[in-house]
C-alpha cells in the first residue's frame, strides 16, 4: 500500500505546498500546530477540497484537480478518527460501531465486529451511550467505528491530544496493537515527539505548510534542528530493542540493542517482545573514559559521528554505538573541556530512571508475562 499527496492550497495568508509519499505501516504527519497537518489529513478524507494537486491511495486517484477528479468523502472508504471522537450522541456504542458497516459493499467488508471489540477492549461499553464514556473510552470506540467501515486507509487526527496523561497511556497501547495486529495502513497526525517515536514507522515532518523532512522514523526524529521549539527537549534517538530478561530483585527490565544492554524500569512484557525505545538527547551524558563510581546504569561505548550547534549554549552530538545512533545534548563548554571531536571514542551515559512510560511501550495490562 502506498499513498501519494501533492497539494497546493491556500487559506487566507496560509499556504500549503506539500508533496510526499509513503508506503509505511504507520506514517506520522508531524509538526507544530498551524503547520497544516490537519488540513492535509482532511484533504485525504475528502472533507476539504484542495485548490490544486493530486491525492492517490493504493493506486486509486481520489483527487486530481487537473483532470477534474474529486471523489466524494463517502465513496473514498478512508476511515477517520477525529481528535474529538465525534461519536453520534443519539446512538448507543454498538450502533455507533455498526454505522459504517451498512455502507460498505458486502464483498469489501473485512472488519469483524467481535475481533475489533476484542482488539480495542470495548466489550463492556457496548450498551452504553457516548455521553457516559470517558475520553479514552470514546477514542477507542471511535477507532473501532472507523475500523468497522473496513477502510482502505485509516487516518488519525491527533487522537490523543485532548486526553490527559493517564488516558493517553490507556489508549496508546491499543494504537500499537492496531499497528501490529491489523494490516490497515495508518496516517497519524501528531505534534508530540513521544507519540511519533513510539508509534510511527515513517515520519513526514511539516512546518508552515511545507514538508521539511520525510523518511523512516529513526532517521527523521534525530533531526533535532527540525523539531518545533517546544518539542525540542523531547527529541532524541529511537532504538529498536527487545526484552532480554527481567531483573526481579531491582524491578528492572534489560533490553538488548545494537548499542548494548539497556536497563529500564520494569516493563510488563514477555522476554523477546520488541520495544521501541526513545532516548532523549537531553538525558544523555558523555564521558571520554569508562566512568566509575557513577549511579547511571547504562554506559554505551561509541564513536562521535556528528556535532551540530543546538539552541543557545548547547551542541548536539551524534554517537554511533555499534550501528545504533544515540544523540546527546551537552553544553558548548563541556564540549570544549572534553575536547570532543568527530571520530572521538566516547561513552554515552543514560540513567535508568530517565526512561519513562512515554519512552518505552508500557505494554497492555493483558500482556503481563507469566
Amino acid at each position, binding site marked *: 500500500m502506498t499513498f501519494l499527496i501533492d497539494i497546493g492550497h491556500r487559506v487566507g495568508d496560509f499556504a500549503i505546498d506539500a508533496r510526499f509519499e509513503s508506503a509505511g505501516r504507520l506514517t506520522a504527519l508531524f509538526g507544530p500546530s498551524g503547520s497544516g497537518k490537519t488540513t492535509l489529513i482532511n484533504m485525504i478524507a*475528502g*472533507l476539504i477540497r484542495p485548490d490544486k494537486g493530486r491525492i492517490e491511495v493504493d493506486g486509486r486517484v481520489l483527487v486530481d484537480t487537473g483532470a477534474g477528479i474529486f471523489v466524494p*468523502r*463517502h465513496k473514498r472508504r478512508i476511515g*477517520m478518527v477525529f481528535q474529538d471522537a465525534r461519536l453520534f450522541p443519539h446512538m448507543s456504542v454498538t450502533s455507533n460501531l455498526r454505522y459504517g458497516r451498512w*455502507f460498505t459493499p458486502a464483498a469489501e467488508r473485512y472488519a469483524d465486529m467481535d475481533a475489533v471489540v476484542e482488539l480495542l477492549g470495548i466489550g463492556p461499553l457496548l450498551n452504553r451511550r457516548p455521553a457516559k464514556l470517558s475520553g479514552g473510552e470514546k477514542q477507542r470506540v471511535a477507532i473501532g467505528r472507523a475500523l468497522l467501515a473496513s477502510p482502505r486507509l485509516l487516518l488519525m487526527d491527533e487522537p490523543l491530544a485532548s486526553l490527559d496523561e493517564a488516558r493517553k497511556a490507556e489508549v496508546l497501547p491499543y494504537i500499537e496493537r492496531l499497528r501490529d495486529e491489523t494490516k490497515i495502513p495508518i496516517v497519524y497526525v501528531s505534534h508530540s515527539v513521544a507519540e511519533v517515536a513510539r508509534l510511527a514507522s515513517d515520519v513526514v515532518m511539516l512546518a508552515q505548510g511545507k514538508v521539511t523532512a520525510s523518511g523512516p522514523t529513526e532517521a527523521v526524529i534525530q533531526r533535532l534542528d527540525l523539531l518545533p521549539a517546544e518539542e525540542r527537549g523531547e527529541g532524541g534517538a529511537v532504538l529498536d530493542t527487545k526484552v532480554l530478561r527481567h531483573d526481579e530483585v531491582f524491578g528492572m527490565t534489560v533490553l538488548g540493542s545494537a548499542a548494548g544492554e539497556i536497563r529500564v524500569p520494569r516493563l510488563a512484557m514477555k522476554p523477546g517482545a520488541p520495544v521501541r525505545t526513545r532516548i532523549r538527547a537531553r538525558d544523555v551524558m558523555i564521558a571520554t573514559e569508562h566512568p566509575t563510581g557513577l549511579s547511571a546504569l547504562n554506559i554505551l561505548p561509541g564513536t562521535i559521528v556528528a556535532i551540530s550547534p543546538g539552541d543557545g549554549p548547547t551542541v548536539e552530538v551524534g554517537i554511533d554505538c555499534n550501528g545504533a545512533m544515540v544523540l546527546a545534548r551537552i553544553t558548548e563548554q563541556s564540549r570544549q573541556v572534553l575536547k570532543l571531536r568527530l571520530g572521538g571514542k566516547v561513552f554515552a551515559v543514560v540513567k535508568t530512571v530517565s526512561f519513562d512510560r512515554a519512552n518505552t511501550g508500557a505494554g497492555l495490562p493483558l500482556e503481563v508475562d507469566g
Partner: protein
Amino acid sequence: MTWLLDLTPDEWNAVRLSIKVATVAMLASLPPGIAIALLLARGKFWGKTLLNGVVHLPLVLPPVVTGYLLLLTFGKRGPAGAFLAEHFGIVFSFRWTGAALACGVMGFPLMVRAIRLSIEAVDRKMEAAAGTLGANPLWVFGTITLPLILPGLIAGAILSFAKAMGEFGATITFVSNIPNETQTLPSAIYTFTQVPGGDEGALRLTLISIVISMAALVASEVLARRVGRRMDIE
C-alpha cells in the same frame, strides 16, 4: 362538570373538525417546513432574505389579508385553485381542506423558525464523520441530522398545531363559517357570541379549547423530554 361535556352535535362537530384541521395542517406543513428551514439555515443563494421575508409574512400581516390572498390564489377562480381542482381534484374553497391550508400557512413561520434554530445548532462535524464512514448526504440527513433536530421538529409541530387550533381570521375569510365543514372551534365560539343566549355555549367551547391546547403543550413537553433523555447530549 357534566354540563361541560353536554355538547350539541354541532358543537361536537366543531371540536372534531378543529382537531382534524389542526392535525392535517401540522402534518402537511412538516415536509415543506423542514425543507425551507434547511434552505434558510444552510443554503447560500441569491434571494435568501426574500424567501425568509415571504415565509414570515403570515406572522406580520393581518390574518384577514392572508385569508384574502389565499382566496385570490386558491379560490375557485384563483390560478392555483383552478389548476389543482382541474388536475388533481383538490378543492380548497369552502371546504375543511381550505381551513387546513389557512391554518397551515398561518403556523408555517412558527414551525420554520423552530426547525431552523435546531438545524443551526447541529454540529456539522458529526455529519462529516458520518460521511467518512460511507454515508451519502441523504443517509447523513436521515440518520444523523434528522434525529439530532428531533426536539426542534417536535417544538415546531406543536407550535403549528396550537396556532391552527386558534386560527380564526384567515380561516373565516378564506372558507367562511359553515357548520360541519369549515366551522372550527374559534368560529363556533364567535358564532355563539353573535346570538342572544349563546354565552353558555361559548364558555363550554372556550373551556374545551383550553383543555385541548394544554394537552398539546403537555404532550410536547413529555415528548421533548423523552427524546432529550434518549439522546443524552452532554
